[in-house]
């Protein structure tokens, strides 16, 4: 288990999240993709903490804890926005939310 293989797995997760965020048309899927990308970045932090030569400074772990809290807050606000948009436009397809288009 070398550092590079863990980083490759986390890069793969990030790219699957990118795939979900870029290629799905439903707003909730896009949010799912964003959460996946955040989780992959957390994995990166923890991996670098584990393989470092100075384990007495658990900076990676602390950043991961705060990142989880912030991701939860952002998911809550994002989902509240999806509900508010659905109430107004009756659709969750992001292609149809184009009323500000020039």
């Amino acid at each position: 288990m070398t550092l590079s293989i863990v980083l490759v797995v986390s890069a793969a997760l990030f790219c699957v999240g990118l795939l979900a965020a870029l290629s799905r048309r439903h707003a909730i899927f896009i949010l799912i993709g964003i959460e996946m990308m955040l989780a992959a970045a957390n994995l990166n932090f923890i991996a670098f903490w584990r393989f470092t030569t100075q384990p007495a400074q658990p900076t990676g772990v602390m950043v991961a804890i705060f990142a989880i809290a912030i991701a939860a807050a952002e998911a809550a606000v994002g989902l509240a926005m999806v509900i508010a948009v659905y109430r107004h436009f009756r659709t969750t397809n992001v292609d149809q939310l184009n009323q500000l288009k020039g």
Partner: protein
Amino acid sequence: MSTVAFTIIAILTLAAALAAATLQKLMHAALSFAVMFLGISAFFFLLGAEFVGLVQIFVYIGAVAVLIVFTILLTRHDAEKVRGFNWSGVVVALAVFGGLTWAMENTKSLLIDPPQIEPLTVHRIGELLMTGYVWPLLCVGVLLTAALIGALILVLEEKRE
């Protein structure tokens, strides 16, 4: 032994992530999203950060996944399914993955084995949170309160006058 565990967890996590990204039925995607977080949590346990793994299960599967499932319920329209899959996203994702892997393989300093470290106790994390990281802790508290109030205001029904 840890290599076998690593391989199994990696395959499970990536399979669940792909399922969450590509399944057409929303509910199944949301549930495989929860399974993916279980896999990431197992990764954290394997890498020695048990507290973060438990917090991940608690916050993501216990709260974020339930939120997503509730939102799917509240924004359901039985008439049409949102069928849309943009294939250019796949190209971009593959390109990014290729770029990242190439960058990683060409960095010699990343081919290291895990060094022996003493296990990180919850006591140490608590100590750090209260001494070195107390400012981020308070800021995250304020941020969570603001997010809570903001989310509540966003979904408040407008009163018809």
